[in-house]
C-alpha cells in the first residue's frame, strides 16, 4: 500500500511523540478539515495511516470503540501496544476470511503508556506490527527512513523541539512544496494530542532553514 500515498513520519522522542504527514493538495471546493490524516484513538494515543481512506475510517472507528470499551471494563486506558495489537489482529482476520479483502492501510500508532514511556508502532495490511524508534510510511518511505537512520540520535530526540524539527526535516526530504504541505501532531507525556497550525509549522520550517544556512556558511568559512 505504498502506491499513491503521501508520506507519514513518526518519531519517538524521550518526552514527546511526533507524527508528521504530507498534506495532499485539496480541490478548491473541498473542505480541508474533512481531509484529516492524523486521528486520535484516545486521549493518549493517535495514529496516522497511509492507504485507502475508507478502510482507515473503518479501522479507526473499531479502534476507538475498543479504547473506550477497555477503559470501562478494566478501568485503565489502553496501552499503545494493546491497541496496536487489536488493530493488527483485526487486519489479520481479514487476510484469512472468505469473501473479504485485507484492509489497504499501513498505520503509524504513537502514544504514551501509563508508565510514562513513549511508544511508536507500525502495522501493515498483513496484520504484523513492530515497534520503532522512528519510521516512515508512504510512497517514498525508503528515502525518509534512510534520512531518519542517519539523523536519529539521542541528542536529536532529547528535546521536544529537536524531535519536532527532525520530523519536519525528514518530511522535507520528499515533500514537493515545502512547509505549507506538512501537517504535524504531537503528544507530550500526560497531555492530550496537539495539532499544529500551519503558522506553527512554518515557524519550525523557517528555523530549520536558518540552521541550514548557518551550517553552510560555517562550511564555506572552513573550506576558505
Amino acid at each position, binding site marked *: 500500500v*505504498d*502506491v*499513491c*500515498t*503521501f508520506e507519514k513520519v513518526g518519531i519517538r522522542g524521550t518526552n514527546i511523540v511526533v507524527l508528521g504527514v504530507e498534506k*495532499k*493538495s*485539496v*480541490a478548491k471546493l473541498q473542505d480541508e478539515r474533512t*481531509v484529516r*490524516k492524523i486521528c486520535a484513538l484516545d486521549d493518549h494515543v493517535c495514529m496516522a*495511516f*497511509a*492507504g*485507502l*481512506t*475508507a478502510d*482507515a475510517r473503518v479501522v479507526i472507528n473499531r479502534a476507538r470503540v475498543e479504547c473506550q470499551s477497555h477503559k470501562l471494563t478494566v478501568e485503565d486506558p489502553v496501552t499503545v501496544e494493546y491497541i496496536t495489537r487489536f488493530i493488527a489482529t483485526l487486519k489479520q482476520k481479514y487476510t484469512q476470511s472468505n469473501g473479504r479483502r485485507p484492509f489497504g492501510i499501513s498505520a503509524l500508532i504513537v502514544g504514551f503508556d501509563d508508565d510514562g514511556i513513549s511508544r511508536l508502532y507500525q502495522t501493515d495490511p498483513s496484520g504484523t506490527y513492530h515497534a520503532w524508534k522512528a519510521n516512515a510510511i508512504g*510512497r*517514498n518511505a525508503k528515502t525518509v527512513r534512510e534520512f531518519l537512520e542517519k539523523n536519529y540520535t539521542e541528542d536529536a530526540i532529547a528535546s521536544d523541539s529537536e524531535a519536532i524539527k527532525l520530523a519536519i526535516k525528514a518530511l522535507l526530504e520528499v515533500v*514537493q512544496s515545502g512547509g505549507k504541505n506538512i501537517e504535524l501532531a504531537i503528544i507530550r507525556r500526560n497531555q492530550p494530542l496537539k495539532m499544529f497550525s500551519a503558522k506553527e509549522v512554518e515557524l519550525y520550517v523557517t528555523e530549520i532553514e536558518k540552521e541550514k544556512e548557518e551550517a553552510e556558511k560555517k562550511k564555506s568559512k572552513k573550506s576558505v
Partner: protein
Amino acid sequence: MAATFFGEVVKAPCREEEEEEEEEGRRETPEDREVRQQLARKREVRLLRRQTKTSLEVALLEKYPCSKFIIAIGNNAVAFLSSFVMNSGVWEEVGCAKLWNEWCRTTDTTHLSSTEAFCVFYHLKSNPSVFLCQCSCYVAEDQQYQWLEKVFGSCPRKNMQITILTCRHVTDYKTSESTGSLPSPFLKALKTQNFKDSACCPLLEQPNIVHDLPAAVLSYCQVWKIPAILYLCYTDVMKLDLITVEAFKPILSTRSLKGLVKNIPQSTEILKKLMTTNEIQSNIYT
C-alpha cells in the same frame, strides 16, 4: 465407411473436411465483406505529414535518413523524453501516426483530437537524422505490423540505432524473489543481437517477456539485424508518476542519449511542473 463388431456397416466420422461444407462455411456474403473492409479501414494506421495532414506515401524512415531513433511508449516514458530530451534541443515535428482501436476513448475515428491516440514523430533540427517518437496510445496487435511498415518500411537501413523506452506494471515481473522486496520502480533492458554497447541496467531475465508495440519493434529490429535496445521500467504506478519517470534517469548517461541531454536540473523542474499540471487528486488514497 466402417464395419462394426456385429457386421453392420456405419458411416465412420471423417476428420477430413468435406469440400462442399468448407466452401459454404467460408463463402463470404457481400455484407460480411463490407463489414470486414469497413473494420479494416477503421483500424488502419495512417502516417500523416505535419503541415498538410496528408498521408505519407513512403515509410517515414525511407523518406528521411536516420542514424538514431528513440521511441517512448506509454505516458511515463513520454514524460521522461519530454522533460529531459525534448527540452535540450530544438525538435521539429515531422509527422504523426493516427490510429483507432477499442482502447481509444472516442468512437469517432476521423476526428481524433491531439490528446487522443497519437504517435508523434520529431527530428532534431541541428541533426535531422536523429528521430524521436512519442507514442502515448495503445497500438493493437493487428495494427503493430502496419505501424512498423509505415514507420520503418519494408527494407529498413541497418546503420541506425533504436532505443525504446516503456513501462510495465511490476505485477507482470516474474521472479523467484519475494515481490514485496522488489525495489520498484526498476529498470531492465533487452537488446538485439546487433546491439554491441552495454546497457545501463541489468538485462531482462527469463521467463519475463516484452509485450505490445515495444516487442513488435524489437522483434522487427532483430529480424532486420538493426541494433536496438529496449529499456523497460517496472513500476507499481502506471499513471504519470514522478518516481517512475525518474527511474529512467540512468539512460541519460548511455550512448543512446548522449549529446541529446543538456540541462538536467532544469529538466527536473520541467518534469515536476508536468506532474503538477497532470495531477488528478483522488480522494480514495491518503
